């Protein structure tokens, strides 16, 4: 099967290239952090993953609204793709964060606001996909995915606030916020790199979903020749 070169493959390649450049700068050019040392360099994927996960979830939310409005399969595919890519980025974020936490704080997990919010976000959208996997009828699946996505996304700000208040009696985890410029550059580059890769993954995933739907899409059978009877309507 020959495939013509699609715009999204271009974006994907660009993203990989940028990721390579950004990571190179991050790993070898940028200064190492005063307290945490070399582990800190994990930040150059960690933070971009966090930003992009959020962004992609927001896209899922927007697609879900459009999907509910139009009932067009392509928006359902887009919603699913965004939710899934969001979950991938979110999981990466959690894994990277845990590794980082293990190295710096000595534990895999801590009940910090951002950590907790990220975990809940992951579970919220994983629930959406679980629901989706149980619905067999395509159009109902689209509607229910959209509804669950909307309901889940609206919850994110509430979760954020409640976790903040929940923590408020205890000390807030200190994070370095004074950042050297040589740290900002790779961060920015990688943010765009992961954004591009995310877009690429989403388009691929949406295509796959549409392909799958198309495979199921059997065209209507031939019209049978009516027998006998005149149309006595």
């Amino acid at each position: 099967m020959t495939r013509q070169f699609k715009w999204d493959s271009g974006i994907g390649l660009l993203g990989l290239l940028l990721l390579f450049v950004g990571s190179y700068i991050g790993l070898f050019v940028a200064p190492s952090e005063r307290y945490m040392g070399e582990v800190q360099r994990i930040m150059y994927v960690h933070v971009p993953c966090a930003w992009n996960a959020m962004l992609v979830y927001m896209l899922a939310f927007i697609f879900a609204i459009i999907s509910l409005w139009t009932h067009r399969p392509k928006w359902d595919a887009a919603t699913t793709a965004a939710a899934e890519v969001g979950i991938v980025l979110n999981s990466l974020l959690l894994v990277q964060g845990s590794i980082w936490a293990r190295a710096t704080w000595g534990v895999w997990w801590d009940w910090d606001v951002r950590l907790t919010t990220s975990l809940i976000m992951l579970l919220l959208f994983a629930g959406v996909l679980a629901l989706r996997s149980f619905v067999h009828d395509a159009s109902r699946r689209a509607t229910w995915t959209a509804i669950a996505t909307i309901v889940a996304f609206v919850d994110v700000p509430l979760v954020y606030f409640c976790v903040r208040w929940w923590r408020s009696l205890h000390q807030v985890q200190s994070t370095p916020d004074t950042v050297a410029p040589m740290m900002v550059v790779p961060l920015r580059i990688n943010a765009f790199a992961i954004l591009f890769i995310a877009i690429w993954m989403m388009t691929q995933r949406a295509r796959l979903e549409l392909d799958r739907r198309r495979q199921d899409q059997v065209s209507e059978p031939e019209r049978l020749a009516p027998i006998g009877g005149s149309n006595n309507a």
Partner: protein
Amino acid sequence: MSIRATDSATLAIQTRGLGKRFGRQWALAHCDLQVRPGEVLLLAGANGSGKTTLLRLIAGLYKPTQGSMTIYGMDPDQEKLACRRTLTLVGHDNYLYSQLTALEMLQVWTRLRGAELEKAQAIELLREVDLHDRRDYPVGGFSAGMRKRLTLLRTRLEEPRLVLLDEPFSALDAAGQNLIEDWIEGYRSAGKTVVLASHNLPRSSRLCDRAFLLQEGQILWQGTGEAILDQVGTTV
């Protein structure tokens, strides 16, 4: 009621190229149906030929995969509630809450239609289907036919102009079947439209004005009620 078959506003049901697909399976395809008000229509066809699917599409319980339809000139997508007020369907299921009594079931249904049902009226209705002495029994303990009788009363609770019946005679004894036949005759003379799907051809063919034979989701043949008996004899 004067009839011009081409004018969808005056038709009870009009479908254009209606089709429904489940997964890779077309349960119904190319369905063009024109039903005039006051007609009694029979849907016949082998098991799995798409009768239930068609009735559920008309009732708005399925969304069509393809095509469009109007019910008394209304588009079900736009005027869902108005359509629901116009029609009633009794399908394979009985829609009962096993803990409620027969009387309470009737009251729940009527109230949700926006009306009020006096107890005397309800008993009268139950008497029609010979359940009046079971009115205070929970329906969970009813026999198959008793449930069917109760559910069929839904068609008499309000004034739906379009009555959709999916195998109304099944599970009923001879007396029950005669009763439903009388009801359908009554609906016809009251100018209501009835669409019924049934395998009881001897009974339903003599009731209907027109009959449709479905096969693999398509309308294969249409004609009069008498003709379908011969037709089925030759094709099925």
